[in-house]
């Protein structure tokens, strides 16, 4: 602690240089913060919620529906606690760029399956009893300024309405919010009655998109999944049952290897950063050789000089890096607002930990060569300017 003033003196020796270096470190880590948030969003969606949920879809392809009759057969599989189902509706609100997921579901069992969707009790009642009722997440409602009681028309892309009208109309009876802030992504969906949907559609009646099961024991999830798939093996509608997490990951993977792109960009950024800060540190130590020699003369041990220089580099990285990641943290909500909720990213704890680790590692990497040089200085040579 008592060396802190010494560290600051070293950093403030050339203010412009330190400031410029700090700013480039900040730029690099601002980018890291945002890109890592993207990577986390794609690689590991959700948290621990849903580890006891399985999803059964057609083995052939997600677009192939499953017969409604499978419901009771899945229910009878040992280890399955409850079952519900959902389908892809693909309705569009006003304009294709307003895309959000909307699913016909069986309201009571679906809401029980997803306790993280918190719906006030009376709104839940209204949803259950209103045939044309729909519920939406908080952020979706905010995005379009919807209030309870509004009528929401969705243009069908897959399922034209049997009554010949160009839209399906839903009554907004409830607005749910996510139980935890990390699950905010689930607030972007709309749910409505499967019955209303099934009766009104022209094709595919009596089928559902996928089933969702809750297992009694998460440790037995794999066994239950296999048991479900065995039920339908060699039938016309073979199934594939996966954990919810696997199901979501398989989606992310289809979009592309986002992780690889992010890593490639960050590789380029950090390579440049190491070069830049390394060069700055080397230069700054070179200029301070006489000062370091004085430090040694008045009794600083070699190890202390080494640590001082290392600490200076790490501190430079930490201040700049935290500045950058702070900027990223603050600008993510702005990006969210600017894209009307399309890019809703949050920086998770793992990003901060990884960032701090990188700051320290890069700090040590760029500080070590000049620090070793400083440690090995011979006082007489240094003072003589040789």
């Amino acid at each position, binding site marked *: 602690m008592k060396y802190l003033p010494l560290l600051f003196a070293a950093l403030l020796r050339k203010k412009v240089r330190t400031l410029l270096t700090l700013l480039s470190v900040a730029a690099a880590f601002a980018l890291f913060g945002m890109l890592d948030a993207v990577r986390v969003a794609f690689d590991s969606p959700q948290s621990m919620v849903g580890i006891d949920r399985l999803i059964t879809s057609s083995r052939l392809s997600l677009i192939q529906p499953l017969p409604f009759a499978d419901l009771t057969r899945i229910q009878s599989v040992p280890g399955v606690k409850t079952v519900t189902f959902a389908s892809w509706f693909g309705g569009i609100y006003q304009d294709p760029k307003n895309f959000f997921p909307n699913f016909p579901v069986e309201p009571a069992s679906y809401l029980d399956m997803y306790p993280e969707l918190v719906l006030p009790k009376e709104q839940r009642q209204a949803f259950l009893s209103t045939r044309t009722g729909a519920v939406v997440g908080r952020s979706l409602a905010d995005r379009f300024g919807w209030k309870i009681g509004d009528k929401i028309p969705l243009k069908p892309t897959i399922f034209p309405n049997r009554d010949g009208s160009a839209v399906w109309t839903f009554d907004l009876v409830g607005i749910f919010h996510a139980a935890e802030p990390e699950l905010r992504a689930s607030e972007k969906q709309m749910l409505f009655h499967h019955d209303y949907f099934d009766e009104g559609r022209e094709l595919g009646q009596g089928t559902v998109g996928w089933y969702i099961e809750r297992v009694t024991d998460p440790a037995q999830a794999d066994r239950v999944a296999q048991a479900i798939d065995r039920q339908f093996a060699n039938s016309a509608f*073979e199934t594939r049952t996966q954990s919810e997490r696997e199901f979501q990951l398989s989606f992310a993977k289809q979009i592309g290897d986002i992780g690889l792109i992010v890593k490639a960009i960050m590789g380029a950024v950090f390579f*440049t950063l190491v070069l*830049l800060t390394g060069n700055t540190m080397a230069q700054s130590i070179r200029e301070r050789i006489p000062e370091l020699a004085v430090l040694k003369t008045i009794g600083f041990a070699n190890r202390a000089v080494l640590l001082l220089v290392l600490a200076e580099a790490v501190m430079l990285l930490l201040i700049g890096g935290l500045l950058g990641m702070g900027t990223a943290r603050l600008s993510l909500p702005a990006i969210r607002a600017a894209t009307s909720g399309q890019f809703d990213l949050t920086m998770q704890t793992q990003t901060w930990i990884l960032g701090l680790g990188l700051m320290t590692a890069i700090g040590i990497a760029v500080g070590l060569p000049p620090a070793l040089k400083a440690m090995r200085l011979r006082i007489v040579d240094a003072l003589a300017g040789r």
Partner: protein
Amino acid sequence: MNLFKRLSRRLLPLLAIVVVGAVWITQPLVMVVLGVLLVAWLLLTQGGRQSLAIAWVGLATVPDRLGATSVVVVGIAGVVGVLVALQAMAAGFEATLDAAGRDDTVLVLRAGANAELSSALDRPATALIVQAPGIARDARDVPIASAEIIVVANVPKRATGTDANLEVRGVGPSVWALRPQVRLSSGRSFTPGRRELIVGEGALRQFRGLELGSRLNLNNQDWQIVGVFASGDAHESEVWGDAESLMAAYRRNGFQSVAARLTAPESIGPLRAALAADPRLRVDVETTRSYYSKQSQRLTKVIRGIGTGVAVIMALGAVFGALNTMYAAVANRAREIATLRALGFTALPVVVAVMLETMTLALAGGALGAGIAWALFNGFTVSTLGSNFSQVVFQFRVTPELMLRGLQWALGIGFAGGLFPALRAATLAVTVALRES
């Protein structure tokens, strides 16, 4: 007054950077003309020759401070490399989809459907559509149109081994006349009525188990792959088979879209009117060009936006790095520069010389970055989820325009990073600089 002077000295260069940057990005030609004038000035006037001489001394000492100058070069190379690579990705995706679109072919979908996959047309409807006016006919007076069915199959990708969505398109007999760009590169075409498929070259590269002669499981039936086709557009990511056979396999009795050739691009109007007037039909008619360009827009916009955003942040970092390096370079040569000024050199050649040095380094960095992006990514094949909920295979396209764009950025960064140090060099108090060691 003094304060005002100091302020304006700081602010004016900043303003210059903003103005020059804006002009440079929006009106590069203006700047190129200015550049030519600059070269003329350098070669023809005394001041110009002085600047060249000073810049030459600066550049000649670059090997002695390799570490410091590499910060400028590598920093800018990083920005340009990332910028060019991401833009090349967007350009490749756009080119692949746009190549599938033409002005003289149309796609008919059920009203409201936003992609072929979400559309559905029953048999009577397709029969009416292909007979509509405006659709071209071949020598035997058969409409050049193909009623098609799209299904999606789970097939493992080569790169990851995990299942991804493969688009399977059932086509009609006239498809070869409709899409002449599609040609078989090996094997033969499928026989209508049999469970045979031909596979696009892009799909073959991205997915496992689609080689000639292998079998693909579609809805629990084995289908044999008998041919490979190339088309140079989005269709290359697909697998084609006979529409009727596929429909039978999937127990369907209806198509999803009708693609047809027009007698002339203008005949879309009459066709649209005829289909709209028919009470038995509720369909949308679109040229394939507008359909496919709409499909590519969303993703390319996202990639371009992210690419530019990332590059801007990286560019900021690179500007700070360049500033640092050039300030250090000027400080190192303070005595030398002061000597020149004492000898009677004016400030302008000094400024120009430092700028020239920075811009040269920036140009080298830009060329390096663009070159690396080209070497690593040109022709790099990837795939992503397209509008038919299936993989679209495309290649990165590092075009000369993109590389020029990269150089444009590099010079912009060089300008921003060089101006302040150049002014510092020109305004150093000569006596102080000469005295300092």
